[in-house]
């Protein structure tokens, strides 16, 4: 019997020793260091941070997580937050922090690097990159003549059983918010009800695009970059789907922005502003184009990844990220209909 328990005894003692080591071992870096809370896709951030570190010699500690979780941590941490910069996939979470007074003003030259409609109205966060809401469709199930010109058509009975979307994704509420703004709350609710009746619900956009590609759903509501990423993973030969852009100005044709902000609690304000400036600099924006994240850089004159429809050719609905607010009205509507 002793032969059997020995491995466990050894494991137990070894881990006790490890624990002791863990408790005492925390290293600190020399030189300037920033802490970046990263809610953006890690891929994009890794490329940006590497370029920034090379460019400035400032070390960046990256804490990657779900943006809502990071935002909650920032709110809990308050004035003692270790975070200097917060970089997110969506703006509602930045608006939430702005409303709570946790963001420092972004330096005017950084704000000026991208079109002002993609920045915070108050100047508390800057837009970094963008993606556009599109319809992905399975090319063997839907012909291009059947495609809707407006996202509002997807609530019609003829789409029954054909649609897939992810009601709990952060990319979905902005669509509801936009429809509320342009067509009113009643229309938005009717639309959402119809869409719900027509659709299969998926946990996230990654699943939506994969399921449309598989033919599980005929069409799906996503942002364009999920399709490009799936193509990068599977290879063009395995793609049985394509992207459809809604008509110009349609509420479905929405630009979602990824943004960044400096925390007002940061004790490295100057360096933090440098990081923000770098994100929207030509070099930073090109790093985004080359990172295979398939997002649109927002700085004018920087080309997106090859294969993307040029940003200037997009004819989105005139809705700014700031107008999207924190999205609580859209959430309430989803909750009312039992989508969340």
């Amino acid at each position, binding site marked *: 019997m002793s032969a*059997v328990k020995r491995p466990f005894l050894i*494991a137990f003692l070894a881990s006790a020793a490890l*624990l002791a080591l*863990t408790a005492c071992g925390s290293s600190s870096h020399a030189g300037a260091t920033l802490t970046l809370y990263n809610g953006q896709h890690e*891929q994009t951030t890794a490329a940006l941070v590497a370029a920034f570190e090379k460019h400035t010699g400032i070390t960046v500690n990256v804490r990657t997580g779900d943006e809502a979780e990071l935002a909650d941590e920032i709110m809990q941490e308050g004035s003692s937050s270790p975070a200097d910069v917060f970089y997110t996939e969506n703006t509602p979470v930045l608006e939430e922090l702005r409303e709570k007074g946790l963001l420092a003003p972004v330096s005017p030259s950084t704000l000026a690097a991208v079109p002002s409609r993609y920045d915070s109205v108050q100047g508390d966060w800057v837009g970094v990159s963008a993606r556009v809401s599109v319809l992905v469709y399975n090319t063997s199930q839907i012909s291009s003549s059947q495609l809707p010109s407006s996202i509002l058509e997807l609530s019609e009975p003829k789409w029954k059983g054909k649609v897939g979307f992810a009601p709990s994704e952060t990319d979905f509420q902005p669509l509801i918010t936009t429809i509320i703004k342009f067509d009113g709350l009643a229309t938005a609710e009717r639309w959402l009800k119809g869409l719900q009746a027509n659709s299969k619900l998926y946990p996230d956009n*990654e699943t939506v695009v994969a399921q449309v590609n*598989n033919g*599980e759903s005929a069409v799906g509501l996503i942002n364009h970059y999920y399709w490009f990423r799936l193509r990068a*993973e599977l290879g063009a030969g395995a793609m049985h789907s394509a992207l459809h852009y809604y008509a110009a100005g349609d509420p479905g044709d929405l630009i979602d922005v990824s943004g960044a902000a400096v925390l007002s609690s940061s004790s490295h304000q100057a360096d933090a502003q440098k990081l923000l400036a770098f994100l929207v600099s030509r070099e930073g924006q090109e790093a985004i184009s080359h990172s295979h994240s398939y997002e649109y850089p927002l700085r004018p004159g920087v080309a997106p990844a090859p294969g993307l429809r040029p940003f200037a050719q997009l004819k989105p609905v005139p809705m700014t990220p700031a107008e999207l607010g924190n999205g609580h009205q859209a959430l309430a509507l989803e*909750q009312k209909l039992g989508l969340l």
Partner: protein
Amino acid sequence: MSTFASTAPLASRWTRAWSGRRRWPLVSAIGAAIAAVLVLLPLVFLVVEAQQSGWGEVRHLLLRHSVAVLLWNTVRLALACTALCAVLGVAGAWCVERTMLPARHLWAVALVLPLGVPDFVVGFGWVSIDPALHGYLAAVMIMTLSLYPLVYLPVAASLARIDAGLEEAARSLGLGPWQTFWRVTLRQVRPAVLGGCLLVTLALLAEYGAFEIVQYRTFTVEIFTEFKLGFDAAAACSLSLVLVVLSIAALGGELALGGRGRGWRAGSGTRRSAPRVALGRWSAPVLAGLAAVAGLALGVPVGSLVYWMARGSSTTLPSASILGALAHTAEFSAAAAAIATALAVPVSALAIRHRNRVTVLIERLAYLPMALPGLVIALGLVAFSVRYAFALYQSSLELIVAYAILFLPLAVVGVRSAMAQAPAQLEEVGRSLGYRPTTVWRRVTLPLIAPGLGAAFALVFISAATELTATLLLHPTGVNTLATQFWAYTSELSYGAAAPYAALMVGISAVPAYLLSRRMSTLAQSERTR
């Protein structure tokens, strides 16, 4: 804090127990107190957080019509899954421990291994095979296949130690083999079955990853949604209070059903192991059944990982970190397993050797965190450490303690069963021979419960190595674990790059799972040959 008034009898009992003639060993009392404080810490901050949104808002959240749906979804899933896990766990354990099953050592390992496959990998594997898979039945199937080892393990251990005498007596009194099984064998292992079922129910209440993938909405899924979309920690915490109530119901239910019964023996002689049953013409169907369970529970997720790895990856993320992630995962999990096991010893020792209301309450308390999603426990710890222990905030130590709290129930189950089976008389003999309590502990108790400690360590290690949601919130900045890296890659759609991380998670969990099953079978053998 009007609850203080109602704890007054407990407090007096506490002092009575302390000053009474059965004095608790001081070390045990301190250890159990630490365990109780650690368990209560996140729970207290949960209530504090929930209160922040105001009770009116809490009431509004809890009385929404969708809450009824969530409650129904959660309860019907818990009932079906727990029942199925009980059947699968008992049947599997009986086949391995009580029949002349061919290659049973192999089966003993294969049936435990699914425990080492993280829930999100299981869900991911199934959905890769059948994208249409979602809803109630999918959730029941996936969770049954990943949780039944929690019943299998204690029942197999218990079956291996059953005394032959009772069954023989039953047979000699005219009961048939089936009747003997139902009325004697099953009754003997009932505490093990119920203990396992309790763990299954609690784990189901807290499950998130798999349900998110198969689109099945339980309370925990709702808590995540509320938190991630509404940025509303307070709402998430209020909804978690429902989970606390549900888990208290499960804990009470297990007590009421007699989960704390003890085994009986015929006569006072040395325990004799029961003989194994020849399977005969049942061999083929039993083997097919076991192969199906192992194949579905293990083959599907592992198969999909192999498929994704073979497809290759297209990620542009730096890939150097895999060894670092492995080292961190092993380090954090092992440390957490050591702490949880160490805490489980006093909790179990007091609950068994000094059974009274306080010690049983502490033991029951230790189960609560398992029913709460890792996210919620982590939120509680964040709230605590930000305010009162900022040095701990985002430290490895805090993450390790979080794991220890989350998986303390698994450690308690392992230690408790060993402690219950170690005869107290032996310790008394030791003391009567004039040994000091510490010597008795070292030379008598420890060797007796060592297998239980091993089981506790292994169970906690496996669970911690695959934990994701608390890890995302608490990990030290810049430190990745296998689970967080897997998550990062899959959220990039880089399944090929994600798969090796999941495979390593399964790999490092397989080691303790293997040792766990080996330990049990060797133990049973040594008893048999004794």
